[in-house]
C-alpha cells in the first residue's frame, strides 16, 4: 500500500499510466511543458523491455510511434502546442489507417511559441480538426493527477479497442501540478489489447470489419504480408481510387466511434433535481468550477456541475437533455470559447449559455465563476 501512495506530477502520472497500460514504445521530441513525460519513459521503458527514442522532430516522432504500433507495441508520444501542430500530418495517417496509439498534448498558450510555461485549453478544436479532411477523433481531458493516470490507461484501451489514435489533452496546470495520489493495484486495472485476426494470411483482408466496426490487426512479421496506405482503400487495404471506397471508409471510420458513444463518452455530473445553473468544464478549469459550486450552494444558490472527461466525441445528446432543464449553462475555458460552441449548437431549450474565458496564461479563479453564477441566478 505505502509504495502506491505517491506525490506525482500530471506528466509523471502519464508515465505511470502508460506503464500500467502496457506501453512498450515512446518516440518524442523535447518540448515544454511535456518533456517530463519523455524523461520518465526514457528511464522506465527499458526496465519493462520497452523502447524509447528521441526523434529528430515532431513529425518523425508521430511517424515512429505509428511504425512501432504496426510492429505490435503499444505506443505513445507526447508534445505541446507547437509540436501538436507538426504531428497533425501523421496523426491523419494514423486515423486513416487505423493505428492504435496515444498522443499526449500538454497544452500551453499559443499560437506559435506563445507562453511556453503557462496553461491553456486552446488546442481543443485543434484536437478535433487539426489534420485535414473529416476524421474520427477521441480526445480525453483529465482534471487532476489521479485522473491523468486513469485516463492515460483509458486512452490506451480506447486506442486498442477502436484501433485509432487517441489524444490525451492535458494543460500545463494538470501536467506540472503535483498531487498525492493512491495508485490502484495492478490486478484492479482493466486492460484492452487490439483484436488479432482469427483467419490465416490467405483469407485475411486487413480492413475487413468483423463484429463491431473495427478490423482485426496482425503485427508486421506475422506472415500476413498486407498493404496499408493513406490513400482511400477498400477492405483489401489497396487503393482503387473509387468514390464509393472513399465514402464507405469514411462512414465506417466515423461510425466506429459514433456507435460506441456509450463506452467512449465519459463525463461526471453533480446536479441536484432543482439545480438551475450548470457549470460545464474540463481539465484544470474543472477544479475552479467545483470550488465555485460548493461556495454557491453554501449561499443557497441552486447550481451544479458537469465534468467532461471525453471532450471528443462531444456528448451532444446528453447536453441536449441538460439544456432542457437548466436555466443557464456557464462554460469556463482557458481559450476564447471553443467547447462553448458545441454546447450552443446543442441547446434547443431556454437555457442561457455564458462563457468565462481567459487566454493570458492565468487560471480562471473560483471567485470569477462564482461571480458569474451570482449574475445569472
Amino acid at each position, binding site marked *: 500500500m505505502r509504495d502506491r501512495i505517491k506525490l506525482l506530477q500530471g506528466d509523471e502520472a502519464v508515465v505511470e499510466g502508460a506503464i500500467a497500460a502496457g506501453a512498450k514504445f515512446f518516440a518524442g521530441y523535447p518540448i515544454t511543458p511535456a518533456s517530463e513525460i519523455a524523461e520518465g519513459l526514457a528511464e522506465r521503458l527499458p*526496465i519493462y523491455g520497452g523502447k524509447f527514442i528521441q526523434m529528430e522532430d515532431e513529425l518523425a516522432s508521430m511517424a515512429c510511434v505509428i511504425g512501432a504500433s504496426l510492429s505490435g507495441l503499444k505506443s505513445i508520444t507526447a508534445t505541446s502546442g507547437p509540436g501538436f501542430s507538426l504531428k497533425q500530418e501523421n496523426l491523419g495517417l494514423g486515423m486513416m489507417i487505423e493505428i492504435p496509439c496515444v498522443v499526449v498534448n500538454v497544452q500551453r498558450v499559443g499560437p506559435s511559441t506563445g507562453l511556453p510555461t503557462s496553461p491553456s485549453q486552446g488546442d481543443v478544436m485543434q484536437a478535433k480538426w487539426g489534420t485535414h479532411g473529416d476524421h474520427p477523433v477521441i480526445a480525453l481531458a483529465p482534471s487532476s493527477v489521479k485522473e491523468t493516470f486513469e485516463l492515460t490507461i483509458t486512452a490506451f484501451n480506447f486506442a486498442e479497442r477502436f484501433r485509432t489514435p487517441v489524444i490525451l489533452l492535458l494543460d500545463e496546470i494538470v501536467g506540472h501540478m503535483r498531487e498525492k495520489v493512491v495508485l490502484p493495484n495492478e490486478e484492479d486495472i482493466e486492460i484492452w489489447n487490439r483484436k488479432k485476426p482469427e483467419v490465416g494470411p490467405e483469407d485475411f483482408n486487413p480492413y475487413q470489419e468483423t463484429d463491431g466496426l473495427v478490423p482485426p490487426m496482425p503485427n*508486421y512479421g506475422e506472415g500476413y*504480408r*498486407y*498493404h496499408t496506405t493513406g490513400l482511400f482503400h477498400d477492405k483489401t487495404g489497396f487503393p482503387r481510387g473509387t468514390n464509393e471506397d472513399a465514402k464507405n471508409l469514411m462512414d465506417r471510420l466515423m461510425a466506429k466511434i459514433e456507435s460506441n458513444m456509450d463506452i467512449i463518452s465519459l463525463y461526471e455530473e453533480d446536479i441536484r433535481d432543482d439545480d438551475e445553473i450548470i457549470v460545464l468544464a474540463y481539465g484544470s478549469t474543472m477544479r475552479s468550477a467545483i470550488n465555485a459550486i460548493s461556495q454557491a450552494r453554501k449561499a443557497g444558490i441552486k447550481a451544479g456541475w458537469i465534468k467532461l472527461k471525453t471532450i471528443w466525441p462531444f456528448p451532444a445528446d446528453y447536453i441536449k437533455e441538460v439544456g432542457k432543464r437548466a436555466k443557464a449553462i456557464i462554460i469556463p475555458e482557458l481559450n476564447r470559447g471553443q467547447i462553448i460552441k458545441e454546447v450552443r449548437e446543442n441547446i434547443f431549450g431556454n437555457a442561457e449559455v455564458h462563457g468565462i474565458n481567459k487566454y493570458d496564461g492565468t487560471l480562471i479563479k473560483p471567485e470569477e465563476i462564482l461571480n458569474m453564477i451570482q449574475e445569472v441566478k
Partner: protein
Amino acid sequence: MGYKIDEYLRQDKLPHIWCPGCGHGTIMGNLIRGIDKANLDPDKTVVVSGIGCSGRASGYMNFDTLHTTHGRAIAFATGIKLANPKLNVIVITGDGDGAAIGGNHLIHGARRNIDLTVVLMNNHIYGMTSGQFSPMTPTGDNATTTPYGNIDQNFDLAGLTKASGASFIARGTAYNTRQLIEIFAEGLLHTGFSFIEAISQCPVNYGRRNGLSSAVDMLKCQRDSSVNIRKWDSLSEEEKKGKFPTGVLYKEDKREYTEMYQEIIDSVQEEAK
C-alpha cells in the same frame, strides 16, 4: 541464374502505374532480385515507402508494406525496426521524397546507423506532380517551376549520408541491372544504415524538357556517365567531369542502433534483478 520474382510481387496489382520508359519498374524488379539473392524471409520483411512515383513501389511488393506520408518513410521504418529488430526493413523513397521534404529524416536515420536499407530512386524530378524541379535536378536544367533555368545546386547524396553516419553507401543505375542486384543484395545483408541511390530515368517529365525525350537515350546517358568505383580513382579530374561513380562507395563496420538499445535493456533489467 533465375530469381523468384513472381513470388515477391503482387501479381494481381500489376501492371504498375509508372509511365512507359520509366526506370522505377526496373529498379523495383532488381530490388526484388536483390531480396531473393540475399535470401530474406519474406514473412519478416517490411517495405515502407513515401509519396511520389517511388512511393507506389510498396503496393506491388508482396511483403508487409506501408505507403506513408510525404518524406517520412524513414521515420516510420525507424519505429517498425526499433519495435521489432528481427524484421528486415526496406525504405523506398525518391529524390523529392527523400532529399527534399524527407531530408531531415534521411540524415538522422544515417546518424543513428539504424539497420534500414534505404533505396532512393533518383529520377531528378518530381514526376508524380508532372515535372517540378527537385534537389537533384541538375543546375541549369529545365522543369515546370524553373521556367528560366534551375539555379539550385544538387546534393551529393552519397557524401551527405556518409557525413551523417551511414555505414553502407552505394549507387547504381537502372541501366546496369546486374550491378544494381549485387548492390541491393549487399546492402540488404549489411547491418546498419544502408543508403543506395538508384539512378532512374523519367523521360516524360524530365527527359522531354531537357533534350532526352526517349528512355533509350536516357539509359545510354546513364551508361556513358557512370563509372565503376573500381575505375573511378584512376580517372583524372578532367575525365571525371560529367560522370559519377557507381558500386559500393563506402562500407564500414559500425555499431548498430537497435543492438545498442538492446544492450541498454539487458543491462537495465540485469540491474533491476
